[in-house]
């Protein structure tokens, strides 16, 4: 069985490639970075460092090949012959690779499955539409399967210089499970290590987004406000730890109301998630987790989506609102420094509506607007929040 992984980054190599290879697939990567192509082909593989809070286990992934995406002929040929196509390029890059997938699928007789390892709701449908719109005959897309993948593993960094000769290493968690939408697939799919096929896919997407991702974002945005550098350090702050629990619990209560209490996993699930954030071996910088705040603040995403679902369940999502406000305060601007430029009291309603799809005058939008107005005026350069509970800042 042949698999092509588009994207040779943290998730492409650190998760998809490793699990596919260990399941017996021949794996070819397509990537736009020519140095990574050279390095992977020179070494014929790479390493994945699988970590928990207490141990690290290196795993060698060998027998792989890589093709530069600029080599359109070779890339198309590989995709045309693949039994399985995986994308791991970050969701914002899907439009750029859709034409390549469209061209390859147009040349195929047999149906193929495409699994998008992207952290985005409805990503399978999104990619299907992008590919269809890039086809001369959009109807050709119907015979192929498109699913997202809800992945559990955090892969936080790549170690090594792609331009060098030493094998690259990807550092991530040991957890292997990922969930795929069985109903969206078109043909039998050979078993892949860690893959869980489900028919009710959407709840799994929301479960991850509204608990794990909401908690991760909470640690990142509040950790940033309080001046910490890493997720594993911020989670040791008692206030942040409590906020992470509270945000995930609010999301969980919304999930329980919509999908059932058993599905929401309970307090044990939250504690297990917090324990993952303590994993110092991941060495995960806060600015990495906090980046791209506008995407993470979208209406159906981890903070606003979770808040709205909680609100619909009769929960007052105060913690999620506070984190959403912190995310609004965050601007990466290359170095994660505070930026108040986007906060104007008179513009709050328009900004909330534009970024979050929220009405600042009602419900969850109103709580977010209030929290934002409390935080933003103190976001001076170099300032930091000393106490979340007391709203005590280091500087006036």
């Amino acid at each position, binding site marked *: 069985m042949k698999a092509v992984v588009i994207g040779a980054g943290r998730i492409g190599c650190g998760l998809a490639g490793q699990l596919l290879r260990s399941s017996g697939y021949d794996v070819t990567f397509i990537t736009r970075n020519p140095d990574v192509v050279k390095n992977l082909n020179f070494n014929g593989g790479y390493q994945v460092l699988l970590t928990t809070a207490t141990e690290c286990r290196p795993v060698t992934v060998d027998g792989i090949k890589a093709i530069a995406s600029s080599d359109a002929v070779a890339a198309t040929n590989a995709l045309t012959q693949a039994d399985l196509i995986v994308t791991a390029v970050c969701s914002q890059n899907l439009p750029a690779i859709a034409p390549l997938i469209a061209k390859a699928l147009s040349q195929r007789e047999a149906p193929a499955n495409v699994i998008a390892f992207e952290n985005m709701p409805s990503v399978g449908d999104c990619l299907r539409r992008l590919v269809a719109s890039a086809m001369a005959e959009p109807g050709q897309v119907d015979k192929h399967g498109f699913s997202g993948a809800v992945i559990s593993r955090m892969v936080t960094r790549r170690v090594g210089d792609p331009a060098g000769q030493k094998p690259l290493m990807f550092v991530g968690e040991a957890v292997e499970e990922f969930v795929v939408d069985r109903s969206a697939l078109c043909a039998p799919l050979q078993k892949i290590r860690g893959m869980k096929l489900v028919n009710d896919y959407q709840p799994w997407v929301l479960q991850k987004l509204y608990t794990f991702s909401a908690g991760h974002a909470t640690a990142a945005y509040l950790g940033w406000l*309080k*001046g*910490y*550098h*890493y997720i*594993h*350090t*911020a989670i*040791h*702050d008692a206030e942040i730890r409590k906020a992470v629990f509270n945000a995930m619990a609010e999301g969980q209560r919304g999930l329980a109301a919509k999908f059932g209490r058993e599905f929401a996993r309970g307090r044990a699930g939250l504690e297990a998630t917090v324990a993952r954030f303590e994993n*110092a*071996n991941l*060495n995960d910088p806060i600015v990495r987790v906090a980046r791209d705040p506008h995407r993470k603040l979208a209406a159906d995403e981890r903070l606003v989506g979770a808040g709205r679902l909680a609100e619909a369940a009769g929960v007052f999502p105060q913690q999620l609102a506070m984190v959403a406000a912190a995310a609004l305060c965050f601007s990466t601007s290359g170095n994660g420094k505070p930026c108040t430029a986007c906060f104007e009291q008179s513009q709050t309603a328009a900004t909330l509506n534009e970024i979050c799809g929220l009405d600042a005058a009602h419900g969850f939008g109103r709580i977010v607007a209030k929290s934002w107005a409390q935080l933003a005026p103190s976001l001076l350069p*170099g300032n*930091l929040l*000393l*106490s979340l509970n007391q709203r*005590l*800042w*280091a*500087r*006036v």
Partner: protein
Amino acid sequence: MKIGMLMLRHPPTRISPIMPAVVGLLKNWGCEVDIIYPEEKITLLSQVRAEHDLYILKSGTELALSLAGALHAVGARILNPYPVAATMRDKIASMRVLEAAGVPVPETYITSHARQLADLLDAGPLVLKPYRGSQGRGIHVIWDADELDDVSAEEGPVFAQRYHKPEGEDRKIYVIGDQMFGVRRIFPARTYEEKIGQPFTIDEELRQIALRCSRAFGVELFGFDVIVSKGRSYVVDIQSFPGFKGVPDAALRLADYVYSVGQRALNGETIFGMSVPAQGKAVTL
């Protein structure tokens, strides 16, 4: 990450929970932390080499400072670099650095015999401090020339500053990376509770002073003492690794900072805006 901490063992009666907590957190995060007590062993100087990715000079003893100098000479990366720690230890040198950087400090005089200061008392009282002193020890406010006779000539250079009667409590400003913290406390603080003091928010004037101190010494981990007199702020002391007592979540913030600097050192990146010497390579003093 291997971290070497130059420490002084305190008596069990002294409450100092911050550094043990810092060490505990760093170990919890997978760092190998070696506590080095220079006073408790014989060190063969020719064998001193950079065996850790990062050193921290916490101890305030002369031996620890000199050992840090020896480590610096063989290219060790020290969180609070030896030249800065040595300069801050010497009030004569550090006050001049601060003054040259535009930091408000009291008028400062040095001499070898206290008696020579007598004429200066016409303009008001002076504060005499041990020029390498710390923690408020040995400080005297001199009002009359007769009191100068009590100052021993054997204690080295005489360091004197114009006395400005403080209004309210002393202020300690702590800087950890790009973070600043203000703690108000009585002087001299004797009990642990007094040393913890009360946190206060830093105004723009103090922030600018802290930035000038940071730029003057090229470091981002230090503390300094400020008194306010007649509405004016004066920096009266600066330390390269203070106790950080009273800083909210001090141990966690320090551990986070040490860890992030250690990562930068491991990656061969610059720390404190200075290039990191290659491990083991001697540097020019």
